[in-house]
């Protein structure tokens, strides 16, 4: 179990860092940390790993306070963005290195290293040097090396960003499979929100050094805590709006019927509608709630779907649809509308 308790850290002479972060990763769980660059997500990983020491707060691993311990005593496997393999050692020697440091005899560490390589599908490349391996293969070796000594947690620092798109998806599943099999707590730092949503049990969003929301992927997507998170995670229509009466809001695209529970008349809010929840209408459809006619400004073909921007009133409605017919209007189901509090940091 990985545990950050009210951890704060500030880089000397800089404003960047993290403040008052509390985060718990249970055994077998994978938590992804996302955020813009400079949001503090890598700092968080470095604090857990022991490359940085917190100014205040505690880092606890399996009920043991490790706040003041150097990295080599924390027993955490780390997979780095640039792999960090040792080029002067063969693949199996790389994987065997943590066992060598722990005094495991040569024959045993070789056997265990080769077993670990087999678990990531690299059993037949154990005698190759890192330079003879492709990026994906190197990442597999790095993963085997990070897990071979049965660490108490796994930290993944942008592990897939150096790989090309197809391989990234494949490695994503591989990492998840291996982490599940090992049953250890894992923290994945990534700037790729799709990656985070697709493999994490929970996603933590960092902004300006603070943890602003932590939730399972679906909940984060459907109920983001504020406008900036909604914008960061997935595609979104976000309209500044005002509650004009019970069940009714005024937006740049027009008046919308929706649930306004908890928002008094006159309150300024942000209306969130995910593009895939917008229902496309034919040129002459009428009689629906929240139906609007508009002019198609952009129509992007994305393979399985189309992403269309429709100019309506003073604003734009973005929708994503599988329908290939001409579109002249849209309807927005009232239950697809979420009202968010405007966030100061929104850009």
């Amino acid at each position, binding site marked *: 179990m990985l545990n950050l308790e009210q951890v704060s850290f500030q880089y000397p002479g800089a404003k960047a860092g993290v403040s008052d972060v509390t985060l718990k990763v249970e055994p077998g769980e994978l938590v992804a940390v996302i955020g813009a660059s400079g949001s503090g997500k890598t700092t968080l990983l470095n604090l857990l*790993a*022991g*490359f940085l020491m917190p100014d205040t707060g505690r880092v606890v691993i399996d009920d043991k306070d490790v706040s003041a311990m*150097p*990295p*080599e*005593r*924390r*027993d*955490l*496997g*780390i997979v*780095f963005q*640039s*792999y*960090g*393999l*040792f*080029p*002067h050692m063969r693949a199996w020697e790389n994987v065997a*290195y*943590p066992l060598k*440091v*722990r005094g495991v005899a040569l024959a045993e560490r070789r056997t265990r290293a080769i077993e670990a390589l087999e678990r990531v599908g690299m059993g037949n490349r154990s005698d190759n040097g890192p330079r003879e391996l492709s990026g994906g293969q190197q990442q597999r070796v*790095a993963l085997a*090396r*990070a897990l071979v*000594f049965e660490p108490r947690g796994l*930290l993944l620092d942008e592990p897939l960003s150096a790989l090309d798109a197809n391989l990234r998806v494949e490695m994503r599943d591989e990492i998840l499979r291996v982490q599940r099999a090992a049953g250890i707590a894992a923290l994945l730092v990534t700037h790729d929100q799709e990656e985070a949503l697709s493999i994490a049990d929970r996603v933590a969003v960092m902004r300006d050094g603070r943890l602003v929301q932590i939730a399972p992927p679906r909940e984060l997507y459907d109920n983001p805590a504020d406008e900036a998170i909604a914008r960061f995670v997935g595609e979104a229509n976000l309209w500044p709006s005002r509650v004009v009466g019970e069940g009714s809001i005024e937006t740049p695209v027009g008046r919308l019927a929706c649930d306004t529970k908890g928002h008094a008349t006159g309150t300024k809010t942000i209306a969130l509608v995910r593009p895939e929840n917008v229902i496309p209408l034919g040129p002459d459809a009428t009689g629906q709630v929240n139906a609007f006619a508009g002019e198609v400004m952009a129509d992007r073909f994305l393979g399985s779907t189309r992403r269309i921007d429709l100019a309506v009133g003073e604003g734009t409605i973005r929708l994503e649809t599988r329908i290939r017919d001409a579109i002249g209007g849209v309807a927005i189901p009232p239950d697809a509308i979420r009202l968010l509090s405007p966030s100061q940091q929104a850009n």
Partner: protein
Amino acid sequence: MSARTPAAFTASFATPGAVVFGLFFVLPLAAVLMEAISDGGSAFGRVWNDPVFWVGLRGSIMLGIAAPFISLLIGVPVAITLARLSPRMRTSLLIAISLPLTFSGLIIAYGFILLLGRAGFVTLLLAELGFDPAVIGGFIFSPLGLGVAYSYYLVPRVVLIVLPAVRNFDMVQLRAARSLGAGPLRVLADVLVPQIMPSLVAAFCLTAAVAIGAYGTALALVGTQVNILPLLLYSKISETGTDLPSAAVISIVLMALCACVIAIGETFFSRSSSRR
């Protein structure tokens, strides 16, 4: 356009170098060889049977080990530190570090005498603290002291050779090794040193060759009191009992020694650069 073939054209670029090489290396070398055998080869026998030559050879080899060793001890940590600095900071420091290379050996020798000689500033300062000025002041005139003085202009060479290797080294490996359970010293020994070893060997050999061959600093510092081959050579051509054939033999030995050391260094260095 020129009608000359590219091969001939590029070959012409090497002409000035070839002329200089011929005039200032091949020709003098041939002259030295001729000189060495001028009295029927008996100079080889004289040098072989001269105990002073063997003491000098031993002194040169010791100096050729001590000076590079001290220089590496100082230069490698400097290179590691430089590699971690910002490019602007690194360039400024490199200029400062390279400066000693431009100083003449004589100036360096006098500098050391002023600092560490019998009436040197540091010697007198240490004498105030109760150290024996005769011992402190004598150190700089010993072979080991000579090694320290040599390291003054060998350290920059070490830094210039080792720095590229350290900069090529992916520092993430150090973090990875720490996370895998290795302490800071073990990380250096297991991960960093093996990978920069070729450049360490190259730096050692190059500075060894310089230390074995140099004579200006030695002459100014210790006169001919310390027995090393360059000073022996100097005495063979300058003092009353001039023996030019013997001097020629000694210079051949000196040159062979340096050539061997350089060859070892270059072999390692080219291997290291081709691997990257």
